[in-house]
C-alpha cells in the first residue's frame, strides 16, 4: 500500500498566509507520533483565496483542505491522518464528493501548471516521475532535427505567452536561420505587470519545466547558453531556480554533451533583474543582462539576428517555455486541440481584485471573460456590482461589464482596445473609479519610462498631470480631448512597447467610461465615491456617539461638537482628507 501523502502549498502567497507554520506543525506532529506518512512541500495550488492549503492523498482519494491554520492542522492530523476520518468541513475540493469550491476547477485545463501543487519543486526526481526531461531525452535520443523541433512548435500553434502573441515556432525559426558561432536563449521572467503573478507561480512550483523548455529551445536554435532574467522581487523563485539548475547539472540534463549526445552543450544561469518594468521589453532586457541601463534599442536588427552580445538570441516568456515539454511529450495536437482558430492551447490567468476566488487559473483559449470571473472566480466580493476587468496591466485596458462575453484569445481581446498581456486580470466593482485607475497606471508608466523617447518621457507626464487635476476636482472642459491627442502622439512616436501601449488604460477608460470622466470634470463628482477631493463628508446624527475621535484627528479643526453629542463638519474648512472617515469607529461619517 502506498503511503498517505500530505502536501502543503508553499509558494510565496501560501507562505504569506502562514503555510510554513502549518508545515512545521504537521512535521512536529509526525515526528512525535512517528506516523508513517509522506509529508511534502509543493508549489502553488492556485487557490490563493484559500491559503494555506493542505492536500491529503490517501488510499481512498484526495482531499484538499483550505484555510488551514495550526489549530486546524492538529485537528486534521488527529482525525484524518490518525483515525482516517476526513474533516469534511474544511475540504474545499475532493475527487470523492462535492465540495464547496468545485466551481473553481470546472473548465480548467492544466498544461503549463501541470505540476504546480503536485510535485515538490525542489526535488528533481519528482519532476522526472511526472515525465520530466523525457521530452528533451526523446528529441536527443531519436535525433529529431532542429527543423522538425521547430515544426512541432509551429504545429502546436503556441503563441508568445508574455503578451505579444507572436508565434513561438516562427521566433525560433528566425533565430535558427542566422548562422553564428554562439547563440543564446533567454527566458523573460521579469514579470513586471502589477497585478500578475502567473510566472512567479510557475517558477516557484515547477522550475524544471522552464529549464527543460529552455534546453529544447537551445537545441532548436543552436544555442549553448541560456539566461533566465528573473525579477529580484521574487526571491523564492530565484532560490528554487538555482536549486533546479544545480540538480539538472548533476543529473546531466545541463552541461556538456547532454545525455551523451556529442556536441550538444547547454547550460544556463539566473540573472537577477534590478527593478525596471521596461526590462520586460526584449531589447531592454538584453541591455540589462549586458550590465547597462535597460533602455530599448532600435529594431531591426531583431534579437533573432543580433541580440545578446550581438549574437542571434531567442527570448520567450516563462509560461511559453513551461508548455514546450508538454507539447513534445504529448504531440502538438494535444495542445492545439484546445483554443480558438488563431489562439491555440491554454492560458494562465491571475485573478485578483474585487473577486471572491482570487488565484491562478489555467483555461483553454476561447472561454469568455464572464465565465472566468463568475464561474471560476466565484463573482464579485461582497455581492457588489461588476464594473470592469483590467487586462494586460499598464499596457492593457479595461473591458467593461457589457463586453464581458468577449472570449479570451489574442484577437478578440485586442479588438476591445485592451491586450491579452501576460495574464493579469484585475476585477473592479462599482466602488472602483475608472479615472483613478487610469491615473494609477499613468503614474506607473511615468515612473517606469526609461526616458529615451521624448513623447513617452514627457507625454505620459503631461497626461498624468491632467488626470491628477481631474481626480482632484480641477478638471477643465477639453481635458478629455487633450488626453486623447497626447495618447495618439505617444503611441505613434515611441520606440518600444512601453510607450506604444502606455496610453491604453486611458484610451479604454475614456472609450467605455467617458461619463465618469465627465462627471469628474463637469459636475465635480466621483460616481464611485473614490476620489477624496470630490466627496462631501457629513456626520450621520443617528450613528455619531460623540466620541470626539474625528475632531481630534481632523487636521484643519473642521469638526465641532461636545463630548457625547453629535458632531458636525464645517464644509468651508474641510479639505476632504478623509481622516475622519478612516478614524470613525461607528461608520458615522457619510460620503456623498
Amino acid at each position, binding site marked *: 500500500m502506498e503511503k498517505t501523502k500530505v502536501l502543503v502549498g508553499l509558494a*510565496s*502567497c501560501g*507562505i*504569506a*498566509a502562514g503555510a510554513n507554520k502549518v508545515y512545521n506543525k504537521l512535521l512536529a506532529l509526525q515526528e512525535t507520533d512517528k506516523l508513517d506518512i509522506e509529508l511534502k512541500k509543493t508549489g502553488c495550488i492556485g487557490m*490563493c*483565496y484559500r*491559503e494555506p492549503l493542505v492536500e491529503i492523498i490517501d488510499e481512498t482519494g484526495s482531499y484538499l483542505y483550505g484555510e488551514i491554520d495550526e489549530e486546524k492542522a492538529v485537528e486534521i492530523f488527529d482525525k484524518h491522518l490518525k483515525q482516517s476520518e476526513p474533516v469534511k468541513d474544511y475540504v474545499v475540493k475532493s475527487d470523492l464528493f462535492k465540495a464547496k469550491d468545485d466551481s473553481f476547477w470546472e473548465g480548467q485545463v492544466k498544461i503549463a501548471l501541470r505540476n504546480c501543487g503536485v510535485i515538490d519543486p525542489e526535488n528533481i526526481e519528482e519532476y522526472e516521475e511526472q515525465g520530466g526531461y523525457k521530452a528533451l531525452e526523446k528529441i536527443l535520443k531519436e535525433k529529431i532535427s532542429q527543423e522538425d523541433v521547430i515544426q512541432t512548435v509551429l504545429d502546436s500553434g503556441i503563441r508568445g505567452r508574455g503578451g505579444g502573441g507572436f508565434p513561438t515556432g516562427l521566433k525560433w525559426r528566425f533565430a535558427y536561420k542566422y548562422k553564428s558561432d554562439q547563440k543564446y536563449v533567454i527566458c523573460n521572467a521579469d*514579470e*513586471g*505587470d*502589477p*497585478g*500578475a*503573478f502567473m510566472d*512567479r507561480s510557475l517558477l516557484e512550483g515547477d522550475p524544471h519545466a522552464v529549464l527543460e523548455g529552455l534546453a529544447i529551445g537551445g537545441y532548436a536554435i543552436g544555442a549553448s547558453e541560456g539566461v533566465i532574467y528573473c525579477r*529580484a*522581487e*521574487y*526571491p523564492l523563485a530565484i532560490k528554487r531556480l538555482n536549486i533546479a539548475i544545480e540538480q539538472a547539472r548533476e543529473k546531466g540534463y545541463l552541461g556538456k554533451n547532454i545525455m551523451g549526445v556529442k556536441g550538444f552543450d547547454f547550460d544556463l544561469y539566473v*540573472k*537577477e533583474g*534590478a*527593478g*525596471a*518594468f521596461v526590462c520586460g521589453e526584449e531589447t531592454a532586457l538584453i541591455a*540589462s*543582462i*549586458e*550590465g*547597462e*541601463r*535597460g533602455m530599448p534599442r532600435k529594431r531591426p536588427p531583431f534579437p533573432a539576428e543580433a541580440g545578446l*552580445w550581438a549574437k542571434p538570441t531567442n527570448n520567450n516568456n516563462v509560461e511559453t517555455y513551461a508548455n514546450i515539454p508538454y507539447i513534445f511529450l504529448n504531440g502538438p495536437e494535444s495542445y492545439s486541440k484546445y483554443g480558438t482558430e488563431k489562439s491555440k492551447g491554454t492560458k494562465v490567468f*491571475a*485573478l*485578483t*481584485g*474585487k473577486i471572491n476566488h*482570487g*488565484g491562478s487559473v489555467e483555461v483553454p483559449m476561447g472561454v469568455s471573460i464572464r465565465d472566468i470571473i463568475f464561474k471560476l472566480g466565484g463573482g464579485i466580493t461582497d455581492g457588489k456590482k461588476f464594473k470592469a476587468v*483590467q487586462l494586460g*496591466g499598464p499596457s492593457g485596458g479595461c473591458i467593461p461589464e457589457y463586453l464581458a462575453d468577449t472570449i479570451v484569445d489574442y484577437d478578440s481581446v485586442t479588438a476591445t482596445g485592451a491586450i491579452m498581456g501576460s495574464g*493579469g486580470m*484585475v476585477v*473592479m466593482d462599482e466602488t*472602483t473609479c475608472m479615472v483613478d*485607475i487610469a491615473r*494609477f*497606471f499613468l503614474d*506607473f508608466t*511615468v*515612473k*517606469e*519610462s*526609461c*526616458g529615451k523617447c521624448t513623447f513617452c*518621457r514627457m507625454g505620459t*507626464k503631461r497626461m498624468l498631470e491632467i488626470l491628477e487635476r481631474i481626480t482632484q476636482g480641477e478638471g477643465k472642459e477639453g481635458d478629455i480631448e487633450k488626453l486623447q491627442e497626447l495618447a495618439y502622439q505617444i503611441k505613434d512616436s515611441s520606440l518600444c512597447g512601453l510607450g506604444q501601449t502606455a496610453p491604453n488604460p486611458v484610451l479604454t477608460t475614456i472609450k467605455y467610461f467617458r461619463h465618469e470622466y465627465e462627471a469628474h470634470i463637469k459636475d465635480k463628482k466621483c460616481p464611485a465615491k473614490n476620489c477624496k477631493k470630490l466627496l462631501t463628508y457629513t456626520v450621520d446624527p443617528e450613528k455619531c456617539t460623540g466620541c470626539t475621535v474625528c475632531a481630534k484627528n481632523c487636521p484643519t479643526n473642521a469638526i465641532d461638537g461636545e463630548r457625547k453629542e453629535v458632531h458636525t463638519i464645517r464644509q468651508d474648512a474641510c479639505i476632504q482628507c478623509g481622516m475622519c472617515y*478612516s478614524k470613525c469607529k461607528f461608520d458615522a461619517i457619510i460620503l456623498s
Partner: protein
Amino acid sequence: MRVKRILQEKETALQDSVDLTLIDPLIEKYKSKKGSMIPILQGTQNMYGYLPEEAFIKIAELTGLKLSEMYGVATFYTQFRLNPVGKHIIKVCHGTACHVQNATAISEAIEDALDIKDGETTEDRLFTLESVACLGCCSLAPVMMIGDETYGKLTGKQAVKIVKEIKIKESN
C-alpha cells in the same frame, strides 16, 4: 522618469564610514567577466544595504568600469539605493490589485505611525518605508513585506500593529 534621484540631496548626516575590504571577493569574482556591473552593484548593496560612494570609487579603480556608467546604472534601477536604510525595510505593495484594495491606506497609516514619508528612514534607523510595484501576492492584497516576511489582507491598523511589534522586539 528614471532619473529623479539625481535631484535628491545627499543625506550626509546618515552616511557611515564603511569597511571597503568586504567587497574584495566580489570584485575578484566579477572583475574580468563581461556584463558584470549589475551583479557587482547588487552584491555591494547586499553588503552595506546601499551603495556607498567610496565603494563606487573602489570598484571603478579595480575593475575599470566607468564611474559615470555605474552611476547611470545605479540611478536607473529602482533596486539600488544611494543612501543608508533602516534595519527593517517596509515594502508596501502598490500593484494594481493592492491599489484597488486600498494600499494607500496602508502606506498612510504607517507614515502616520512612524512619522516618516514614503522613501524615508526613521531617526532610530530601524525602519525605511518604501512603496513598491507588485510583490506578486495579488490574491492577498493589500500586501506588505518586511524582510522576507509577507503580510497579506491588511488594514492600516494591522499594518501598524505589525510594525509596532517589531519595534518592541527590537527594544528588548
